[in-house]
């Protein structure tokens, strides 16, 4: 283990500031002096740390000194062979992972409940998705992890696939049996890529689900800015011993900015140090807060705050104990309705609401008194708004019907049709529903009646639908002549 007390990027920035270097380079705001309004808003220290690559500060595109050291420290802290600082979010980490193993026509095995960035990667590289339908929990109305048997079948039926992609965990905190999936995939010569956007703390907390690196995955994208505490958009891509790190860096360089932000990089460096030194203690506190909130919420009645009690050994192989997911349907209110009431009437913003659940994100920044507010607000919403739950839509998992690769469909000649006229046609764009950011339609998939009804329902319930060219989602692009 390297000396995790070090923070090379931070140290270099501190030295740079002390040297009082006169900047005749970008950025043009010159330590904030050239943009007093922005400096007044963000603060002088922030502007002074917004600097350009230079010899003493290294260069993200070609790290040879302090960024390299910081990346090596990060790799060591996460038990990885290599780590890469990412400044365009875990989206870029996920896309770089996929782009590094899949080319045009290559198959990749993946669960349907992947983040939109994965679909984007498929459009970019031309890979063929082989979806493993995640099982669903009908009571909770959520997509789960991949059943091991389903992964085995997908691998055996697609022995030429290049990689298996795993959410570790899902947005809801659900983990698949990642260790066994790795064994299966590796036996067939496939790489295993993990989306650990919600898994930073698995590497530092005690009694957490298995992390991708510990399970033997080849690569993982890690949203340090979520449970890791770094700035929004900063992320890590980490890789194991069987990955050619230099090639991976080349792939990252295809889409990554050449003006890597030192605000983001220093936040990664400082956060990594904090996690390495104090992570166990931090996530013990977070777990405690989440467990307290669950206990209190479950005493209110009708709400169901779940955690490891739903673990089933397969599709819910493990559950992230820091997640606070609350099933709301027994109050007669959809999750998205509770989400809206919390924000509009109680000034409480939770992470998301879907048909049946809300998810409150608990982190080291939370205070007991804020948890009390959330619990009391839920109690009040039930007292004031509880109603008969008949008429609430039940969650249904919609199996995609893949008719073309995402790349083929996305770049094909298209027709923009009113959405109600698209039934049976092949979609040429993505339709995502936020939350939770799982594709309803990806390019190349057939538009079914069920899908159209779901889109209509989510529109009415106030879900945010994104992806299509037409922002109002009144019209959809379909493949011409299909």
């Amino acid at each position, binding site marked *: 283990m390297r000396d995790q007390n070090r923070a090379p990027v931070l140290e270099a920035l501190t030295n740079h500031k002390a040297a009082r270097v006169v900047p005749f380079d970008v950025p043009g705001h010159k330590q904030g002096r050239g943009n007093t309004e922005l400096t007044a808003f963000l603060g002088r220290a922030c502007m002074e740390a917004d600097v350009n690559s230079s010899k003493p500060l290294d260069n993200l595109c070609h790290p040879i000194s302090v960024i390299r050291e910081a990346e090596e420290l990060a790799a060591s802290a996460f038990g990885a062979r290599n780590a890469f600082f990412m400044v365009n979010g875990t989206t870029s980490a996920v896309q770089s992972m996929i782009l590094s193993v899949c080319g045009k026509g290559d198959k990749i095995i993946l669960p349907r409940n992947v983040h939109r960035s994965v679909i984007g990667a498929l459009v970019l590289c031309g890979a063929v998705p082989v979806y493993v339908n995640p099982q669903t929990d009908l009571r909770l109305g959520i997509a789960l992890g991949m059943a091991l048997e389903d992964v085995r079948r997908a691998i055996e039926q697609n022995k030429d696939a290049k990689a298996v992609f795993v959410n570790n965990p899902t947005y809801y905190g659900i983990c698949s049996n990642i260790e066994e999936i790795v064994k299966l995939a590796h036996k067939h010569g496939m790489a295993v890529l993990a989306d650990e956007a919600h898994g930073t703390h698995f590497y530092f907390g005690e009694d957490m689900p298995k992390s991708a690196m510990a399970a033997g995955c080849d690569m993982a994208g890690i949203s340090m800015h979520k449970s890791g505490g770094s700035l929004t958009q900063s992320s890590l891509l980490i890789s194991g011993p069987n990955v050619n790190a230099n090639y991976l860096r080349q792939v990252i360089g295809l889409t990554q900015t050449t003006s890597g932000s030192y605000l983001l990089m220093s936040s990664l460096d400082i956060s990594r140090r904090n996690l390495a030194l104090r992570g166990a203690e931090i996530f013990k506190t977070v777990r405690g807060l989440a467990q307290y909130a669950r206990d*209190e919420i479950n005493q*209110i009645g009708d709400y169901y705050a779940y955690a490891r009690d739903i673990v089933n050994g397969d599709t819910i192989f493990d559950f992230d104990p820091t997640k606070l997911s609350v099933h709301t349907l027994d109050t007669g209110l959809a999750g998205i309705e509770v989400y809206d009431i919390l924000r509009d*009437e*109680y*000034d409480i913003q939770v992470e998301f609401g879907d048909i049946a659940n809300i998810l409150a994100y608990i982190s080291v920044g939370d205070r*007991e*008194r804020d948890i*009390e*507010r959330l*619990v*009391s*607000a839920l*109690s*009040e919403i039930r*007292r*004031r708004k509880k109603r008969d739950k008949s008429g609430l839509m039940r969650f249904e998992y919609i199996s995609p019907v893949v008719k073309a690769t995402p790349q083929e469909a996305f770049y094909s000649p298209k027709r923009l049709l009113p959405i109600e006229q698209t039934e049976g046609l092949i979609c040429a764009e993505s339709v995502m529903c936020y939350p939770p950011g799982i594709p309803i339609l990806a390019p190349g998939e057939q538009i079914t009646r069920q899908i159209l009804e779901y889109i209509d329902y989510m529109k009415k319930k106030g879900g945010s639908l994104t992806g299509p060219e037409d922002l109002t989602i009144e019209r959809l692009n379909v493949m011409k002549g299909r």
Partner: protein
Amino acid sequence: MQLVFTEKHTRHVGLCIEVDRQLYCSRSRFQRIDIFDSHEFGRILTLDGVLMLTEKDEFIYHEMMTHVPLAVHPRAKDILIIGGGDGGTVRELCRYDSIRRIDLAEIDEEVVSVCKEYLPQVACGLGDKRVKIYYEDGLRFIRRCSDAYDVIIVDSTDPFGPGEGLFTKEFYGSCFKALKNDGILVNQHENPFYPEDALAVRRIHQRIVQSFPISRLYQAHIPTYPSGHWLFGFSSKVYHPVRDVDTDRWKQYGIAARYYNTNLHRAAFALPTYVEDIIKDVEDAGISRL
């Protein structure tokens, strides 16, 4: 030698009190607690550097928090105080023989023990057998109560800090649930003078009018609180604070108050125009929502 305690009331205005000596200073799990001896105001309690009470003028606050609802409610027997660990509100309530239960939900046990030791004039009622202290977050405590109290008195710190949860819609809604069918809620309501505080007054009132059919503000003059002009909230399911006050009944309690009297009761609900203006539209909007 000159020792001065200063509390900033705004960024540019502060109250300075010459201090004789500091008697106590510690950081509890929730806040910093200080006790000073001063020449002009006697003993002073501050939490996180914010003045909570002085021996000289605490009677104003505590009398107005208690006698106003007790003069309106015809048979208040079960009372809940949220906050109020100094004991001043309890002391005033203990003067009513008709009260049978006083529950106190105070988050910080150290405030209670410090006040018992250094502010006996204020904390003297805490030993009364009708008083039961729950060391718990007020919001958590009230969540579990239903149809339990005649009067709830919210004797809290400012809305910025540990007491923040006691100024929320979820808290006022929970108080409504915790009160009996004809219950009354009284809360400290900040000052209406400084713009930032006036905004808080408005927000607090907005949240309360959404929870209670009757909700009025009243005022008192408290020298050591910001601007010296302090507001209180009177919220109620049935009783109107002025129309339903029974002055004869209150006089029969035989309580010798120094600030409160039955004439002042009615007058306290007459607000300056600028204060009415702060709350007028949120009141109208709130009433239309009920």
